[in-house]
């Protein structure tokens, strides 16, 4: 997030696109509700009638995968109606001309037709957002989990640059990060192309710095993304994988292929707290600890580094993950003698300029937000106040591209997958909470009641959803929340794994799969 969570109630126009915060980030949902109670205008672009549409001034129920057409259509309105922030564009940005050229091709009528919403609503949304005093965009995987995910994000950044709604309190571009520490995992270098603190491995100066600190020669070749690792495993180039606290068999697209990739490895280690679907395939399983059983820090979606504290012991012989990793490192002949997570933090902060000013003492009561370059620095509530990381903000001319696998005669339904309020991702934790399991016991397929009637089934009837990759059975949940012709499934349920169905087509930059659109067939299961 470029802004802080606490700044949300101060926004006067909120544009939520491809995010369902009342279920996936409920406390951010509460803050958005609070902003609306304070009189803010809410615009929601989402194919489904998510909860926030109840309090939205405008809901744009776009056809899945047409986000960029909508975004460019809004930009077209902003430019053609003179609503752009000329002063901001002049002083803080570059590259408007080429971008304006692309946007000119997207009058709202054209966008409306592709998105299947009204041109008037696109105009209304553009005007509300552009005229805001403190306009804020919120997005999540509905934007990124497409083959055009990077372009979608750039499209939203363009909107913020066009209107100057960035770099201010309550005004910015806010991706809501999914997992408790996905922000932190990236920040501390669990990415193939950067050392801790986003320092590129390909830059010699960075390598020298880490070679000196770690006293070894380091590789200058950026590593493989997860997606590439699974492909390399299928091709036989990747021989071993060490998987920690993740369940790719449940969470990656086209799970059948992931299982096949893992089975071709010469060696698979899984370190986890339950025997996950992935752990079942492992050669060695190491019993690890959950958040309540260890000390350390997580970094939340607003870049705030916060303490995690040990409250109870891990069960049986299970161990804290950091202790397991130290053992593995030592047994591989590299000296690692940390006696506490704090020592590890101090080393990583010393090597990461954005985190250098944060230590356990300073975050004992309240966490600090990076960038925090030195111990006198108060942390950073919102980004890009004076300048962008690269200096001027750059408009990128991004053009709409259709989803990789649109519905056709053979697979006429459009399947989208996602998360629900009651369960968390692969369900390994929440499905073992009896009250939650009772509330949400099984998988379901959301389908419009008119569509359900068309296929001659009643609410609650078992449906078989089939794609070119697999087949899953789950009960029908009739709801007007979903568009006609669309179905929606959560991926929390191992006995009905939605990712057996999803498409392994990827964004070319991030290598993120298109979880939000693929073609499917729906049949009624005969009892």
């Amino acid at each position, binding site marked *: 997030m470029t802004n802080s969570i606490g700044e949300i109630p101060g926004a006067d126009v909120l544009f939520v696109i491809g995010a369902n915060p009342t279920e996936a980030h*409920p*406390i951010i949902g*509460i803050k958005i509700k609070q902003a609306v109670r304070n009189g803010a205008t809410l615009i929601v672009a989402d194919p489904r009638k998510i909860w926030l549409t109840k*309090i939205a001034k405008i809901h744009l129920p776009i056809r899945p995968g047409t986000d960029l057409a909508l975004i460019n259509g809004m930009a077209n309105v902003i430019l053609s109606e003179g609503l752009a922030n000329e002063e901001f564009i002049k002083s803080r940005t570059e590259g408007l001309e080429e971008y304006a050229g692309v946007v000119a091709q997207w009058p709202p009528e054209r966008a409306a037709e592709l998105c299947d919403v009204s041109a008037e609503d696109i105009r209304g949304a553009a005007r509300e957002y552009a005229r805001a005093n403190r306009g804020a965009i919120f997005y999540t995987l509905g934007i990124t989990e497409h083959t055009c995910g990077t372009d979608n994000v750039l499209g939203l950044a363009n909107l913020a640059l066009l209107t100057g709604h960035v770099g201010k309190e309550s005004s910015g571009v806010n991706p*809501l990060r999914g*997992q*408790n*520490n996905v922000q*932190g*995992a990236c*920040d501390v*270098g*669990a*990415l*193939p192309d950067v*050392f801790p603190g986003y320092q590129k491995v390909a830059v010699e100066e960075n390598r020298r710095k880490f070679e000196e600190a770690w006293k070894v020669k380091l*590789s200058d*070749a950026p*590593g493989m993304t*997860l997606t590439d*690792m699974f492909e390399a495993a299928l091709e036989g*180039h*990747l*021989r071993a994988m*060490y998987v920690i606290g993740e369940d790719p068999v449940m969470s*990656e*697209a086209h799970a059948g292929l992931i299982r096949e990739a893992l089975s071709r490895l010469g060696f698979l280690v899984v370190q986890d707290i*339950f*025997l996950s679907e992935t752990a*079942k395939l492992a*050669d*060695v*399983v190491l*019993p690890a600890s*959950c*958040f*309540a059983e260890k*000390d*350390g820090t997580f*970094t*939340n*979606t*607003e870049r705030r580094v*916060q303490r995690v504290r040990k*409250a*109870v012991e891990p069960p049986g012989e299970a161990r804290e993950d*950091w202790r397991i*990793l130290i053992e*593995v*490192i030592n*047994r*591989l002949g590299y000296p*690692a003698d940390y006696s506490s997570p704090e020592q590890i933090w101090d080393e990583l902060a010393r090597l990461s300029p954005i985190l250098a000013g944060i230590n356990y003492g300073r975050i004992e009561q309240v*966490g600090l937000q990076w960038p925090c370059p030195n111990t006198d620095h108060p942390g950073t509530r919102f980004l890009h106040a004076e300048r962008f990381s690269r200096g001027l903000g750059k408009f990128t001319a991004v053009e709409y591209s259709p989803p990789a696998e649109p519905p056709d005669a053979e697979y006429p339904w459009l399947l989208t997958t996602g998360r629900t*309020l*009651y369960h968390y991702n692969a369900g390994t*934790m929440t499905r073992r*909470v009896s009250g*939650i399991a009772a509330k949400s016991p099984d998988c379901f397929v959301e389908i419009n009641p008119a569509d359900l009637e068309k296929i001659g089934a009643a609410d609650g009837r078992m449906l078989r959803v089939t794609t070119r990759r697999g087949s899953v059975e789950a009960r029908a949940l009739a709801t007007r929340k979903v568009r006609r012709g669309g179905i929606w499934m959560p991926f929390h349920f191992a006995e009905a794994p939605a990712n057996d169905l999803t498409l392994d087509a990827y964004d070319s930059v991030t290598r993120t*799969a298109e979880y939000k659109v693929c073609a499917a067939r729906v049949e009624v299961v005969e009892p």
Partner: protein
Amino acid sequence: MSNTVTLLINGEQIGVAGGTTILQAARLLDIDIPTLCHDDELEDRAQCRLCVVEIDGRPRLEPACATQVAEGMTVSTDSETTLAARRMTLELLLSEHPQSCPTRARGGECNLCDYADDYGIRAPAFGYGSETEDIRENSFISRNAAACILCSKCARACEQVQGVGELGFMGRGIGVTARPAVGKTLEQTECEMCGNCVVVCPTGALRATGPPGRADAKVRTTCGYCGVGCQFDLNVRAGRVVGVTTEPDNPVNGKWLCVKGRFGYEFIHHPERLTAPLIRRGDRLEPASWDEALGAVASRLAEIKAANGPDAIGFMSSSRCTNEENYLVQKLARAVIGTNNVDQCART
């Protein structure tokens, strides 16, 4: 209303912004005014009348939570009249509250009983109310009608914070109580089980289900579910997490949580937790010692590195683990194995 207003509270002068309530102004002077229905994050309804104060020139006592300051106002928060009125209010509330407070009996905290103690009320003039059985509203929330004092905070939190609005005053006369629609439990409504009604309840009429008794320790930590990073206290008893409570003193979530954060802790002590290393023998995973398991990991990784090069090994680090652990994973990949093949699920 940003002009400064000067007033006297208990003889002390203070200047505050116009629009400030007497309750807020008094707190700035560290003067404690008792209240059962006020919450800083909810709209005031002046329901409990416990925060009444005496204002010079006004014929009646006024509720401090709902009365705005005015220039030259002289307020007394502890005059005999005020204290007598509060005692009367407490005695009336106690007349519908069981003598054996169901919340205290469970080791919980009841603000009404606490105030009754503070005001030295041992034998309330109108006696006590009768006891009622707990009603299980859903898997996580129980309700005791007798402990309810109709402060409406639960209903306001449900409506104003969560936006759900499934709690309200139901019934008539002395039978009125704050609850879901008549004939329903919360389970049968749109209730999202966030438990934010439980947090604001001053008497424990709404409470988390679970065994009675106090926690041995409360450990402040960060929620392990989504990326919001809510702060809460794990309540620990006899080495087990038995509950989650919140305090308003953090900038992320304050005292609010969702169902996963507040009630999703049972997995921690689930019998299916992995408790010993496992090694594959044929098509079975069998328990092994740490020494054997770690030995296998180190020797196989070393063998594959020697045979196929460091880039034949990949690490899927964890967006669920700590920063310190993720740092160790990428250091293991880069400095020990010699590959940059390290990633996590940031892409999904």
